[in-house]
């Protein structure tokens, strides 16, 4: 089987290479580009740990061939921190609100939340929960993930997150 040439922009950097057509995007990112932030969880399109941003869409990179991403612009968790190295509002939110325990789902959660907040800058709790329905977390029970996203949404709007009384 002839290899295919792919060229894409990953975290602002142009990359190109030869891949077998069956190479999944997650393997291209992790094994060819050494970007091991996107995780392989279930490998069956369920868990969302491999979520990356592809041309302004959240996709599960275990269910996209690298050849389908030819010409695309990809952002992974490695591309989220600010240029000065300080944390992105979502990363800060997950830290401040204890949005993770083991951390395995976190890169996918943050990438999905990133696109959600691009589309809905001031989401309701229900919109957040519906928006991250394709990402599974087995530690947190989601409560603090929702708060982390609310924290980031407030910060990105220039506001301070006021946690609702429980």
């Amino acid at each position: 089987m002839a290899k295919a040439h792919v060229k894409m922009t990953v975290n602002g950097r142009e990359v190109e290479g030869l891949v077998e057509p069956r190479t999944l995007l997650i393997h291209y990112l992790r094994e060819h580009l050494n970007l091991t932030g996107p995780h392989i969880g279930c490998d069956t399109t369920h868990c969302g740990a491999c979520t990356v941003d592809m041309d302004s869409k959240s996709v599960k990179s275990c269910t996209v061939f690298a050849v389908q991403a030819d010409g695309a612009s990809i952002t992974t968790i490695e591309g989220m921190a600010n240029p000065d190295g300080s944390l992105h509002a979502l990363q800060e939110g997950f830290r401040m609100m204890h949005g993770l325990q083991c951390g395995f789902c976190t890169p996918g959660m943050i990438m999905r939340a990133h696109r959600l907040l691009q589309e809905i800058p001031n989401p309701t709790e229900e919109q957040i929960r519906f928006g991250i329905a394709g990402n599974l977390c087995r530690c947190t029970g989601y409560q603090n993930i929702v708060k982390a996203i609310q924290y980031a949404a407030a910060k990105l709007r220039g506001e301070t997150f006021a946690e609702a009384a429980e």
Partner: protein
Amino acid sequence: MIPAPFSYHRPKTVAEATALLHSYAEVARVLAGGQSLIPMMKLRLANPEHLIDIGGIADLKGIDRAGDKLVIGAATTQHELQQSKTATEAAPILMEASLLIADPQVRYIGTIGGNVANGDPGNDMPAVMMCLDASYRLVGGSGTRSVKARDFYHGTYTTALRPDEIVTAIEITVPPAGHGWAYEKLKRKIGDYATAAAGVVLTVSRGKVATCAIALSNLSDTAVLATDAAKAVIGTALEKPALDAAMQAARAVMSPASDTRGTPDYRTHVGGIMVERALKKAFSRAKG
């Protein structure tokens, strides 16, 4: 899991795609969003030697309305469909069903053409298209033809699509203003296929159901039009005897598989309830 090796093709036009399909006939598969096909290839349930990626064909995108005709390009993603006021205002059942498919990531790249052409009884759009009496535009080596959704599905993964054809668009006659619609889906969790689901499109005149179409998802080896169930409610205001008759008639055409979603008896039971809920919701939304 990594799929078995294949040769990859990315045609730029429908003609190129159908020529490739003609050349490789039985050993090729069309890749649209890939959200069903790639998992199947990982599990070796599909082993195409040639993969024809239609993602680069601009003609397959887009949603247009002219008069009462709505045409949805086959490569339109669920996400794009949801963003289209043209489509979702003309037939709101498209939005209701689309939001119940899989999860956000899958909806960003999963296509409506893939959903209708796949032939899996668990896909949601075939029943919706049966309710709307939509037609699929099929293009192949011998030209273009149109097949009604109601005639398209022959069995699980078996459809009217010929080996050298692709679905290029879905054509819908827009239901009348004031029509009622609903798609009710019982599922175990987000992302799951339906345990049982039912779609309804109806019109109401002087407080009574004037026209009605009911279709079922994942309750037989294909999506099914429940014709007798629809007849049972026409001319009624959905009083209990009419609803009971509709549920009974719908259950009579169900033959769900026994799987992790439940036994055939259970799925048939809840299938009837999905019909009842969809009818009530559609009726409450209708004007007339």
